[in-house]
């Protein structure tokens, strides 16, 4: 329903997302990557909040021009801290549709309607996140763009919010660095590194058998109960300005990586790595 076609995004003159083609398909789509990889920037473009400097965002096969109709159909779910600190949460939920009964929306996301008169700081993190979800659902959207919706929550609250999100019938694009969350909510995933999609494919397969060294590093960085913590490099992550952006960190880098790899299809996966077939 929503597609980025050869999209390049920039802040000022600094491009942060390069030539990305990505479609939001049914079953949930995950966008995985470290901080600064361009996930949120891409989400802002999908929400119509940022115009591409190159390429186009298509909605229903047509370029995104009539934002009025689009606004009601695609809604963001930001982090729990995304509520106006001065506005009572009931008013935040009812902002788009004042006539909508707030109580039923609050009940639908597992909130006590009596909390409607409170301000965000008077609620717990989990309650705030539910308010954010209720606000997005108020306009009955077709697609939710979830930007790190559980990253500021503790694990037990996170589990309850995931349960709530998994139960929604709305389509979703989930932006996260948490592989466990993406494996639960998304059928398809894309891995973003330095503003480029380096690997795409069915989530279960992509996480079980990563074909890009960066995806593999992400997978190995997940701490396991009883296991040893991931090895620290002792240096800030670096990206290469030319060729494969990951090559300065890649244990498999070869001279060919000085040329930028184009994404190639391998089965139902797409991987941008010269050594993808070896992994």
């Amino acid at each position: 329903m929503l597609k980025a076609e050869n999209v390049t995004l920039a802040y000022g003159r600094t491009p942060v997302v390069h030539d990305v083609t990505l479609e939001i398909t049914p079953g949930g789509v995950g966008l995985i990557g470290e901080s600064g990889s361009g996930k949120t920037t891409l989400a802002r473009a999908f929400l119509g909040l940022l115009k591409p400097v190159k390429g186009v965002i298509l909605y229903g096969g047509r370029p995104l021009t009539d934002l009025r109709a689009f606004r009601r159909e695609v809604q963001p779910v930001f982090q729990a801290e995304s509520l106006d600190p001065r506005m009572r949460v009931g008013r935040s939920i009812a902002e788009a549709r004042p006539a909508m009964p707030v109580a039923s929306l609050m009940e639908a996301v597992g909130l006590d309607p009596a909390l409607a008169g409170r301000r965000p700081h008077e609620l717990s993190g989990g309650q705030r996140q539910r308010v954010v979800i209720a606000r997005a659902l108020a306009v009955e959207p077709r697609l939710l763009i979830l930007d790190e919706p559980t990253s500021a929550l503790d694990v037990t609250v996170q589990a309850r919010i995931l349960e709530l999100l998994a139960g929604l019938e709305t389509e979703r694009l989930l932006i996260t660095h948490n592989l466990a969350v993406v494996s639960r909510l998304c059928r398809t995933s894309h891995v973003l590194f330095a503003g480029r999609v380096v690997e795409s494919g069915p989530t279960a397969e992509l996480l079980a058998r990563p074909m890009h060294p960066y995806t593999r590093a992400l997978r190995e960085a997940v701490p396991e109960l009883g296991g040893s913590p991931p090895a620290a490099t002792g240096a800030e992550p670096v990206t290469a300005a030319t060729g494969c952006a990951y090559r300065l960190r890649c244990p498999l880098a070869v001279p060919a990586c000085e040329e930028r790899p184009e994404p190639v299809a391998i089965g139902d996966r797409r991987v941008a790595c010269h050594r993808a077939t070896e992994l």
Partner: protein
Amino acid sequence: MRRLGAFLLALIVLASLAAPWLAPYPEDAVDPLSSLLPPSPEHWFGTDQAGRDIFSRVLYGGQTSLLIAIAVLGSSALVGVALGMTAGYAGGWLRDVIMRVTDIFLAFPALLLSVALAVVLDPTVTTVIVAIAATWWPWYARLSMSVAASVSTRPYVDAARCLGVPAPLIVVRHVLPNSLTPVLVQLSLDAGGVILTAAALSYLGLGAQDPIAEWGLMVEQGQSLISTNWWVVTFPGLAIVLTAFAFNVLGEGLRNALDPRRTVIK
């Protein structure tokens, strides 16, 4: 401390408003034989060069000085915040145009611009208000533009945009309430400065004129006497300092009251 500030400001305002009943002498009652008398039971704050009772003139002067301060700050904030909010939220060319106009006003020394405006207009209290407000609003425009630009990038503003809330409503509902605190604090800090600037204009013959009682004018008229007749300048000066202090404490109180994180669950 906050209550002391509110109490002081209330006292100053009430005393100024009740001047016709509280003042023991008319503000402009000249008595050459009583010139420059020190404080005494007859003249609590002494008398000035023309033999006028300084206590009475301080009470009446509050009306003029507070009127100037409130009118200047109110109109400057209204214009400056409206332009600053528009520039900060809209960004792009509109922000550039508004900010360049603001920069032009800021490039002139404030007092010089006030003097130039006051020369063109008649020397009255209204002239003082217009002249000072014309140089004061750019500061509020610049301050509120920078705060509004920052608030406009917050996720709750993005969320409102995504809900299709019209831009003017987003500014009124989200950007303005979350940008006002520094403006209110600045307003409270500026009150003393406005009164002193009004005094400077009056001294130059471009604002309130004798025999109108105005604190700044009284300070300017008495400054050459500070080593010989200290009371002439001290009491109106104290009135300015106390008023500025009361406004500052009130600003701090407002800042706290407007911080939603300081409210408690009822």
